[in-house]
């Protein structure tokens, strides 16, 4: 009897799959692969077979289990809401618990488990720029979500010279009548796009909140969940729990759609403390919208020259029903013209460690966005997830379009011309 302690809690959920096949219409990976092993139904059949011990973990099963972005698109459309994304996560943990981590998994662990290492490496070089990346040895932790081996064609942004924590004080005082809000930055905002983090802190502070950005916070755990690294997931959970303890925070906000899932979701093995923490997590756009920011923006004097913008739905927001809030904010901007694009809710194709394993599929999934972006004639493609920004920019570059991806928070803070009071 094999004890699948990660997968077993999902037994009932797995059995809820009625094999209707509806997920075929919504899975971006199936859309490319058109093979049953790639779709939710196939993976659930394998999960069931594992629990029934009619299959063992072998390389073929691992391959099928690797073909998932954990985007949750199938879950929302499934008549029984079978949480395939979570079940794939559990299967990946079973795999790595038994067979150790794959190469990508190991590099993710090396980086996300050791912020100082990531920090040090980022400091010394423009690590994600392709030229320098090639000099990085195969086994280096730098390969994160973007190992270059096998897909040297990926274009990557330059890394910021200073990370978020050097740009932002750990505590920014707000108005006395407003509570403290914890700022969860996540790896991409911390190291690649610190200006998004700065914008987020300025906005929250502008609304009166004190902002606490603990230095000791770690990765949200999405890449680790994606590779199934049980130990690392637990380690990161503990790190983040501890990090936010120094202040009594009312909410923990994040400007990264993936992080929002990473720290805001629980699983059947979560402790009460983790559930409490997850309960405080807020998505920044939804938060700002509820704070009435759309009205504040709409009241600003409009400009004559307007930049044409459009919006991409990150899977991690779309599947949680956060669809209107980012749009409402964008549509209220005084200096832009919003144009909805076709297929705005199609996945960008990044998906945790997916693009590292399957860059060809990842790229093909991303290319499905291009026609819509082009037809919208937008100059700026706004979104609410730095991961999507990276991937979309890569797709745009390959299609040779003159479009820039941008985070909504950057647009808002620019429109409000916020100063950084702490400076």
């Amino acid at each position: 009897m094999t004890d699948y302690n990660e997968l077993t809690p999902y037994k009932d959920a797995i059995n809820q799959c009625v094999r209707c096949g509806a997920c075929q219409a919504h899975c971006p990976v199936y859309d490319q692969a058109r093979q049953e092993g790639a779709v939710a139904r196939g993976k659930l059949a394998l999960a069931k077979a594992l629990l029934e011990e009619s299959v063992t973990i072998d390389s073929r099963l691992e391959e099928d289990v690797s073909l998932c972005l954990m985007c949750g698109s199938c879950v929302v459309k499934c008549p029984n809401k079978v949480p395939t994304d979570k079940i794939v996560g559990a299967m990946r943990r079973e795999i790595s618990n038994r067979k150790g981590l794959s190469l990508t998994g190991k590099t993710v662990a090396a980086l996300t488990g050791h912020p100082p290492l990531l920090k040090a490496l980022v400091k010394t070089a423009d690590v994600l720029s392709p030229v320098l990346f090639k000099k990085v040895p195969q086994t280096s932790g730098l390969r994160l979500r973007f190992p270059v081996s096998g897909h040297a064609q990926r274009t990557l942004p330059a890394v910021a010279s200073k990370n978020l924590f050097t740009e932002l004080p750990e505590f920014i005082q707000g108005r006395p009548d407003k509570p403290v809000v914890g700022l969860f930055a996540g790896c991409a905002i911390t190291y690649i796009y610190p200006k998004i983090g700065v914008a987020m802190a300025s906005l929250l502070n502008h609304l009166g909140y004190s902002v606490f950005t603990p230095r000791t916070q770690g990765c949200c755990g999405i890449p680790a969940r994606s590779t199934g690294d049980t130990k690392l997931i637990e380690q990161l959970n503990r790190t983040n729990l501890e990090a936010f303890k120094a202040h009594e925070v009312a909410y923990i906000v994040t400007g990264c759609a993936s992080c929002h899932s990473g720290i805001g979701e629980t699983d059947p093995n979560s402790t009460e403390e983790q559930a409490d923490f997850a309960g405080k997590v807020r998505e920044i756009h939804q938060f700002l919208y509820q704070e009435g920011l759309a009205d504040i923006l709409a009241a600003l004097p409009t400009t004559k020259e307007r930049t044409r913008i459009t919006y991409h739905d990150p899977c991690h927001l779309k599947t949680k029903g956060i669809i209107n809030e980012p749009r409402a904010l964008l549509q209220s901007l005084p200096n832009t013209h919003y144009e909805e694009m076709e297929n705005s809710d199609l996945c960008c194709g990044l998906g945790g460690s997916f693009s590292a394993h399957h860059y060809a599929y990842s790229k093909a999934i991303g290319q499905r966005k291009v026609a819509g972006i082009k037809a919208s004639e937008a100059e700026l493609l706004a979104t609410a997830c730095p991961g999507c920004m990276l991937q979309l920019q890569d797709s745009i570059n390959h299609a040779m379009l003159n479009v820039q991806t941008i985070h909504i928070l950057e647009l808002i803070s620019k429109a409000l011309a916020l100063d950084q009071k702490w400076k």
Partner: protein
Amino acid sequence: MITEQVHTALQNVVGKNNVYTETADLITHSYDATQKEYLPDAVIYATTTREVSDVVKLANQHGVPIIPRGAGSGFTGGTLPIQGGIVLVLTKMNRILAIDEDNLTATVEPGVVTASLQKEVEKLGLFYPPDPASKEFCTLGGNVAECAGGPRCVKYGVTKDYILGLEVVTPTGDIIHTGGATIKNVVGYDLTRLFVGSEGTLGIITKIIIRLLPKPAAKKTMLIQFASIEGAAQAVSTVIRGKIIPTTLEFLDATTLACIRHNSALDIPEECRALLIIEVDGDADILERQAATIIQLVSELDVLHTEIAETEEQSEAIWSVRRSVSPNMRKINPDKFNEDIVVPRSKVPDMIRALEKLSAKYNVPIVNFGHAGDGNIHVNVMVDLKEPGMPETVQRVLQEIFQTTVDMEGSISGEHGIGTAKAAYLPMEIDSATRKYMQTIKKALDPLNILNPGKIFLESTI
């Protein structure tokens, strides 16, 4: 098990990496929407007609069954490898080869998903009407093999009404062509019709020539609540006698309404015992008049409330009532036996009454809804199979349902086909001489019984 020799021969035909035989592969191709499971011996994804033909020839040489598979959304087990063999998947043959705006035809490969063809032709102002509820994921090859239908069939007919011609790989591996690109064609036997609904037992469809229509300019949705099922049934006949053929005429019976009442976008009072959703399409200016005529025609018939959607949102709200049925039904009991019987339109109330009696007799919930316009009733027997004796009870209930259907001159399947799920009931509806005729055809075309064996006919009567 396929032998090493067959394995190598298959690899030579489709390439080394395209013959899948690992346990994981077999598991992921062992089921369809019936939730039954049978492991195949190998899985192949075909990419060309030539490959299909070569694989079939090999299967004949070595006596290995071949099971064609589309999206695996079938409800009757058509693509289950019940005797093992090679599952031949067609989802990668998914190109739309041509859309001919002059002749209103489309030529497609069998793996094209129904809704993707619809989307493409609608961009050009054209229309492919058959709309199975699975259209977002089922394949056109599967639709042809099952002769799929949908709500729009009242007005527009079913899949067979839109198939002009086919390219088929026969059970012995020959490539043949039936029909053609013209509406009129009387040269030779009408083999196209033979293949439509043949459930993958007579040939593997590798190309489909489809007839298209101009896309109707507009549509209008109505919802009518009735105090009795008789009222709703009479309304259906009255509308049709009034010389209006709506695009869709969907009904929900009292058991269905009970499941969704508390979870519905619209208010459905307790007195409401049946509900019709009617949609008409055509030029915008005649739709107003048609809608008014329908409401007026049915007004005397136990009507409690009528609603005509004025906006797209209102129409959506009406359809959301229909869509809420499946998710809410599961709350009654975990296991669902979904049958798609058909009775003559006028017999719908009798059938519903009979189903209510059966439900009381066996003490199992039976939820009914469906396409009132063509008498196609989705009968859902909702049970918990874990209850002692339940599997046997279900079999008895189903047997009685089918018998009642046939007694009313109806048919035991309107859309989903026979496959393995209904094979046992086939003799109830088709007499032995007719069955023998059908099996003679099968035997002549597939002497070794290679292609999808064990489907439609339970036992060999010849």
